[in-house]
């Protein structure tokens, strides 16, 4: 979707304000949100693309106003409701309604190190050779899906060159909507800054974007 989350190239978002000696979490609740997202994600009922898309669906004005972990909390809450981990009544009351005991085993503490160390690789085995080769000129398609995509608006219609062929990866545009992983070749594409932004950009500068085969045409 062409949402406000797709921020590359926007103006008017203020200055970058680094913080000295910034803590990992500014409030205890931020750490709890982070941990809840990981612990509930471990059930495997959704995936990272669905989780990102849920945050993209937050109303535009709220997305720009909310802090990072507020957005995580809002997205997690929606996912818990959608996937029936909790009901709206339970959320409102804060109490579990009497129900057939515990649904599923919770993530135990001793499994946390494994979860963190293992992660969830998004690479898949290749079933076909890559369509593009290193150095080849490609044009990013002018796609404007209303669902999830990882093709930023600022790259659409622009011409670049394949810089790296990464192998086969899960395709977010379908995976986010539980329509399958559709694994396909992923490339790092180098776009000259002037191709992206016009003559005002640095003549030698470039932006590298990781793009799936379905985002690209030969140019």
């Amino acid at each position, binding site marked *: 979707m062409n949402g406000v989350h*797709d921020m*590359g190239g926007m103006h008017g978002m203020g200055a970058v304000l680094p913080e000295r000696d910034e803590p990992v979490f500014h409030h205890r609740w931020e*750490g*709890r*949100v*982070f941990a809840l997202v990981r612990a509930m994600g471990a059930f495997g009922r959704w995936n990272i693309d669905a989780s990102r898309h849920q945050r993209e669906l937050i109303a535009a004005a709220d997305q720009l106003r909310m802090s990072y972990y507020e957005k995580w909390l809002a997205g997690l809450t929606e996912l818990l409701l959608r996937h029936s981990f909790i009901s709206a009544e339970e959320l409102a009351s804060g109490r579990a309604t009497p129900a057939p005991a515990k649904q599923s085993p919770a993530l135990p*503490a001793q499994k946390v190190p494994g979860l963190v160390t293992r992660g969830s690789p998004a690479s898949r085995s290749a079933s076909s050779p890559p369509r593009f080769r290193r150095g080849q000129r490609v044009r990013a398609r002018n796609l404007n899906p209303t669902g999830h995509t990882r093709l930023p608006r600022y790259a659409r219609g622009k011409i670049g060159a394949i810089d790296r062929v990464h192998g086969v990866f*899960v395709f977010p545009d379908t995976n986010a909507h539980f329509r399958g992983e559709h694994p396909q070749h992923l490339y790092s594409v180098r776009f000259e800054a002037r191709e992206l932004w016009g003559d005002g950009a640095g003549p030698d500068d470039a932006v590298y974007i990781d793009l799936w085969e379905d985002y690209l045409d030969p140019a």
Partner: protein
Amino acid sequence: MKKHTPHHDGAQRLPSDPALQVMALESLLVEKGLVEQEALDALVDTYERRVGPRNGAKVVAKAWSDPAYKARLLDDCTAAIAELGFGGLQGEHMIAVENTPTVHNLVVCTLCSCYPYPILGLPPVWYKSPAYRSRAVIDPRGVLREFGLELSAHTQICVWDSTAELRYLVLPQRPAATEAMGEEQLASLVTRDAMIGVALVAVPQAGGA
């Protein structure tokens, strides 16, 4: 019966609202047997104490000290950082990009805030801010200037927008006058910001470290 004072609710609720919401959500999920508090504690502890930019600094220091390791890092970053025991969540697929006298690399995620947890920990607020996400790709020199870094017009800036599950580590240039330093001392010079690409690694002060 207590007096009803609805007009106070708003004011009191505002600052602590997410804190209360999270507390309520956590206790609901615990009551339903869906989370164990000890697991949450362990997750918080992992990123508050165990995983952070010191990991990345060790990788950089080793690459500076050991040409064979540096070659492996640039060829297969995921495997090379695994040699040092790092990897996993949000670092399943790593790429190292090397700064040179003519090329400076900068990492951003314009669509959300993707970041290489295993070597840098969790991202700082500025990395997740609309200001950084919007401008890093269209005005990298302006962004670097706000970090106090003025690059020569002859330096080519390469911005890496982390749109996929690949996570980027900038391998900074080794500063001058560090020939005598061992890996541990070198690692102490390497900052998080240098590994994102918004800073250089400074030449150490005379007599320093």
